[in-house]
């Protein structure tokens, strides 16, 4: 179990969640294995052709396929009855997965300079906080006028 955890969370010897220090405009950042561990890295190298350690077309196709499958799953869930209170949390979870997939790999935040991650994440946190408060106040203290 500890080994599995290490493989999932470690990235080239560093914690996977550690953001890269690299410059902002490297053409092919050398530390682009999405997740660490020998078997995952081997699979990654196979998919990205030629054993290179940066993301290539194969990897992008893989991410694209994952995004498509998650979308199919969401639509399938829409037709499933009996999920009850689980429906919205599951959908939001899948939505977050897709969101992170695009931002981390297609927008290269996972491999780019950490400053960009800080900027975008700060905006997300502030935005979510403010709009959560708006929704909260609207729910408990303010009834929007039924205009039409």
């Amino acid at each position, binding site marked *: 179990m500890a080994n599995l955890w290490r493989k999932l969370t470690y990235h080239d010897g560093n914690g996977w969640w550690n953001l890269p220090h690299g410059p902002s405009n490297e053409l092919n950042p050398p530390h682009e294995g999405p997740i660490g561990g020998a078997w995952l890295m081997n699979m990654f190298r196979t998919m990205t052709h030629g054993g290179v350690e940066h993301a290539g077309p194969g990897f*992008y196709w893989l991410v694209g396929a994952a995004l498509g499958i998650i979308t199919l799953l969401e639509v399938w869930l829409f037709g499933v009855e009996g999920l009850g209170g689980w429906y919205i949390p599951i959908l939001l979870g899948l939505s977050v997965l897709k969101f992170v997939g695009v931002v981390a790999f297609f927008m290269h935040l996972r491999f780019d300079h950490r400053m960009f991650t800080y900027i975008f994440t700060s905006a997300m946190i502030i935005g979510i906080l403010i709009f959560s408060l708006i929704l909260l106040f609207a729910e408990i203290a303010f009834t929007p006028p039924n205009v039409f």
Partner: protein
Amino acid sequence: MTQAATTEHHAPVEDTSTGLNSRKLMMWAFLGSDVMFFGAFIATYLVYRGKSLIGPYPSEILNIPITSVSTFVLLMSSLAMVLGLHYVKTGEKNKATLWILAVVVLGAIFMGFQFVEFREFAHLGLTPRTNIFGTTFFILTGIHGAHVTIGVLWMAFLAYGSHKGTLRADNSLDLEIAGLYWHFVDIVWIVIFTVIYLISATDGPPPGMESVIHG
């Protein structure tokens, strides 16, 4: 102006106070502000969700299968975008042009879906002035559609540049910055699709109002 220096790893470093490319930094800052912009409209939609006193309601009008297809198209345009950027960076001009052109085509298809959807809704009696659902729905999806339109035009310009050979590996940052914008438009739609379509698609009249509305 910035100049690129080369490190011992042959990775260019921007000669700026931050060490980051200023244009790219500006785009990320813009995207951060756009998060707030879209967040405001999404929050407004949620505040007024289920408050419409007259129809059509989401449950009567939203078409999940059709929107799922358009969502898939937009996701695939993001894939085409990142592939286009990869091939520009590796100097494979024809492949790069093809994939950037694919972004344009897929983006245009998405816009087509949205146009047909808006027209269908109008035909069924839902306009921005019909009810509060119509107002919040059309403003949010319309602004997103405007973003897509700008992105399609931008990509068309870059596809032409790639075809003519003016977009190359050494100035691939032009495409990378446009790509950031395009992917952002995609992730906004990921949220809209979940919140407006999948979660709200069963919304009807406000609780307790059905008997009043329908007599």
